[in-house]
């Protein structure tokens, strides 16, 4: 998409044209950390947020009671409409050719990639190739003892490609993910479920969107204690525990059998009952991801109050697939071993639509830039979650599907969804993916917010009778000593809505901008400290580890981390710090050893 809009001629090769934009897992976009990614993708000119806005049926801002840094916008989308709109978008974009077929091999001329070979023998020439195999590469589906080759429900895997990459010098790794059963809407007793309505004032992701609305509520159910017994009895039939699945699954999104085994003291588990489309029949049971045999799935689901009569439309399954082990791509997402080959999406070991979209956008931009002889784009990890994501994929070794969390960002307070456009839109404009007039409108808005902050910081409030009464009336707070409006608004107990309509420094702003202003006021002192912290990190990054440094000679290190360092040979302390499983203690040992090593001043 981005590549074509930058002026490159793009061919999109897919196994099935009708599966473009398909959401094999929960048709929801955003969430905490993931919502941040969508906002940044949108600021750079990507289309995911817009598509979610257009097809969303239930919008909710997670962490709304907290500050803007951790707001997590989330949209439940209409799965069918999302796929349709994405397909239409691809078809309608000038410069994109859609080709149905299976890419089975790379064409390498000299050292660089110069095209792909399709299964039917066609050869496509290209200056750069972006691979996004999702969960299809060497994929195997598991449901109970049933095991079949396939990338998604009802779709065949892609096998040929894997071999040619291993040949090209890329190390592969096996990951696993899963999905829960879908049941028929008419078989759910909604009256017995807890209703979760969308936000009163739903907000969209995209600058392209003028308004969004909620069409349906979602619901919450809870698994009863007997689910534990049902699963424990059938554990040996679980491909996960019977040893049939070797791929590593995500810890943060475990299957229900995983949850039962790992948290036996939790007597109930939450299940979000979410419609997959606005008007259709399919209901997604978020939280019940499973690869148990079909009869066990039925028993588990029907044990849940409200789902006793559940009719299955599709059973849950696990999928094992190949990914390219981390740290084999550069910051432009080009494979280091194969010039001209760019990688993105789940192939890089991430999970989720948002992570995939972030990587896809950046790989597309950089691949197109390399072909067009333009400057690509890079987001630093201090600039945005896309930067955190790519930095982690490039430098860190993650051993499970990688999902974004806000706690992955060192300077989280500066990377809220509210500031995504301020941070990244200028790059979108430079690449030609965001129109300048949009940027100008946005700039005015940012300026208004900044001015409001300055004004509120400057407005003195002295505890004379008039002022005390005014402030008390507007906020319920009694002014006892001289302060500013900013000082009052920083308090935790202020009702923003009550103040926002009447306070002169705020009333002219849109409601969401008022919240942003107040949130930023609350962060101020902390942000300054965080900036200092940042400069410390930059200093630490510089400390070099000499080539040939003997990590094995450091006693006190765990075997895992020692082997990890021997294998990956970090070149600086910051690279070492980012290794999977690295602890401050282990890092201090390395630093300490570096320190003692140097003391003799020997060459």
């Amino acid at each position, binding site marked *: 998409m981005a590549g074509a809009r930058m002026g490159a001629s793009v061919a999109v090769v897919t196994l099935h044209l009708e599966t473009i934009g398909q959401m094999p897992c929960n048709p929801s976009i955003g969430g905490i950390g993931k919502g941040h990614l969508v906002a940044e993708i949108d600021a750079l000119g990507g289309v995911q947020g817009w598509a979610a806005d257009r097809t969303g049926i239930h919008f909710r801002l997670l962490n709304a009671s*907290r500050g803007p840094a951790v707001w997590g916008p989330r949209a439940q989308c209409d799965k069918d409409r999302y796929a349709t709109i994405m397909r239409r978008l691809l078809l309608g974009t000038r410069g994109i050719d859609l080709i149905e077929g299976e890419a089975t091999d790379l064409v390498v001329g000299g050292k660089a990639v110069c095209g792909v070979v399709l299964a039917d023998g066609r050869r496509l020439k290209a200056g750069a190739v972006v691979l996004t195999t999702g969960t299809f590469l060497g994929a195997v589906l598991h449901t109970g003892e049933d095991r079949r080759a396939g990338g998604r429900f009802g779709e065949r895997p892609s096998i040929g490609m894997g071999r040619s990459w291993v040949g090209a010098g890329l190390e592969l790794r096996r990951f696993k993910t899963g999905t829960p059963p879908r049941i028929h809407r008419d078989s759910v007793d909604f009256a017995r479920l807890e209703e979760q309505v969308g936000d009163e004032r739903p907000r969209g992701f995209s600058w392209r969107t003028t308004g969004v609305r909620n069409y349906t509520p979602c619901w919450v159910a809870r698994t009863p204690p007997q689910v534990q017994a049902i699963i424990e009895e059938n554990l040996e039939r679980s491909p996960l525990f019977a040893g049939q699945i070797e791929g590593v699954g995500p810890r943060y999104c475990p299957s229900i059998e995983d949850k039962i085994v790992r948290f036996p003291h939790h007597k109930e588990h939450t299940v979000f009952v979410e419609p997959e489309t606005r008007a259709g029949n399919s209901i997604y049971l978020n939280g019940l991801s499973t690869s148990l045999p079909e009869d066990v799935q039925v028993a588990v689901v029907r044990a849940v109050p409200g789902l006793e009569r559940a009719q299955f439309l599709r059973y849950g399954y696990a999928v094992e697939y190949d990914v390219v082990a981390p740290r084999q791509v550069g910051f432009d997402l080009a494979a280091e071993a194969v010039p001209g080959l760019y990688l993105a999406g789940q192939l890089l070991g991430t999970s989720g639509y948002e992570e995939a979209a972030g990587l896809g956008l950046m790989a597309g931009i950089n691949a197109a830039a390399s072909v067009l002889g333009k400057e690509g784009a890079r987001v630093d990890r201090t600039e945005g979650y896309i930067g955190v994501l790519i930095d982690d994929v490039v430098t860190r070794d993650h051993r499970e599907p990688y999902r974004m969390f806000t706690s992955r960002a060192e300077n989280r307070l500066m990377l809220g969804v509210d500031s995504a456009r301020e941070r990244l839109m200028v790059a979108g404009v430079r690449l030609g993916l965001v129109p300048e007039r949009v940027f100008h409108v946005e700039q005015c808005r940012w300026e208004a917010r900044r001015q409001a902050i300055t004004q509120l910081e400057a407005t003195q409030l002295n505890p004379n009778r008039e002022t005390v009464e005014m402030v008390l009336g507007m906020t319920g707070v009694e002014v006892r000593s001289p302060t500013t409006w900013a000082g009052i608004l920083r308090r935790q107990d202020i009702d923003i809505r009550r103040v926002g309509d009447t306070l002169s420094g705020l009333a002219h702003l849109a409601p969401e901008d008022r919240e942003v202003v107040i949130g930023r006021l609350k*962060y101020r002192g902390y942000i300054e400290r965080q900036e200092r912290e940042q400069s410390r990190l930059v200093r630490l990054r510089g400390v070099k580890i000499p080539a040939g440094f*003997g990590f094995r000679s450091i006693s006190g290190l765990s075997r895992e981390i020692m082997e990890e360092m021997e294998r990956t040979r970090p070149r600086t302390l910051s690279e070492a710090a980012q290794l999977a499983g690295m602890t401050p203690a282990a890092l201090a040992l390395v*630093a300490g050893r570096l320190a003692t090593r*140097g003391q003799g001043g020997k060459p």
Partner: protein
Amino acid sequence: MVKASSSRLSSVLSGCADTIVAQATANGSGALAIIRFSGPEIQAVAERLCPRLSVARPREAQLVALLGRDGREIDRGVCTPYAAPRSFTGEDMLEAVVHGSPWVVEEVIATSVSLGARRAVPGEFTQRAVANGKMDLVQAEGVNELVRAETRWQARLAREQMHGSLSGRISPLREKITGLRARIEASLDFVDQGVVLSDEELRGALGECIGAVRGLLASFVVGERVREGARVVIVGPPNSGKSTLFNALLARERAIVAPCPGTTRDVLEAGLDMGGVPVVLVDTAGVRSTEDIVEAEGVRRAEAAAAGADLVVLLRSADSPRETVELWGVEKDRILEVISKSDLLEVAPTGEDVMTASCVAEGGLAELREAIERIVLAPLQAHDGNVAINRRHKEALSRAQEHLERSLLAPREVAAEDVREAGEALEELLGLIDTEAVLDAVFASFCLGK
């Protein structure tokens, strides 16, 4: 001495650690001297330096000849090899006890240097012990303090600290804070999956951590008293017997004593050990109004000394008990009032707070000494005694406290940052984060061979 600087971190060096050597005992002649070696090349060094030694028999003291570069015997000594990781540094080690001749020691060290060892910098053995996980930074400080201990209390606290009394309270606290931070992060990142940490629960957990930090901080007065000691200043009108008392407490004739007022004109200091705590005893000029420029300066210094004292012994003479000194800015509980020359006293004074003593008749002097000791040791009694933080600890713990207290009032996503920083302050304290400056500061004060 090699200056420890940041450049050492980036120097390019090969493979694993080298082998270091240093004299562990004090410089100069002595009956015996100990030379320590640590590092992977011990065996290679020993093969040439003391070929009869069997490193295959670790922890066994073996009487062997030590040979110089020319192969001639330097001395015979008792050598004990240690095998990694069961040694002080966690590396292979060798301890050689030789005769305490500076020439012998230097010859042994020079020979081992020619065999590939390197002269250690101060604190390097302990630094390796820290780097190899044999102890944490706080324990390493205990080692240093034990080496330098001059009084019973200093030795006791240093020993306890070396054995982990303080680390044993900081480590669990750090783990608790790390766990709390994980819960805060989970409550932010997994709110959609029903992870809940209520504000009350968070405040409760933070309160516990703050309480623990405060408890440790309170032990600073103990540490300060034991490490820095106390200043006991004798103040009084001229000719009230200050210098006589000063000498009597020191048990030597340090100050000039004369029957004429104004004999002592400057401030005199002398150190002594009272009940295991170092005390600096200060004698001052008699306080009175005077035209004499020199004496007036002495009076000014006396008043300044009283202001900075941990304890003021305020004397007045039995022959003129009304003549006393008003001390401004010195709290009552820092003053011990004493009537001197009690042998001249006809009637015992009625006020309870006043002691009497005579240096001539020895009457009451022992009681006065005891009273001073009691006051000097008071902070130690008030505490459980096996933990006493120093300034570096206080600085890090105060920082942790500040962050924790701030997090009580902050929005949760900001509190997360503060809790992280509180944890980092403790990690720095234990030496778990390399802030090289910390390591440098700690190791800079080490003596060679430790």
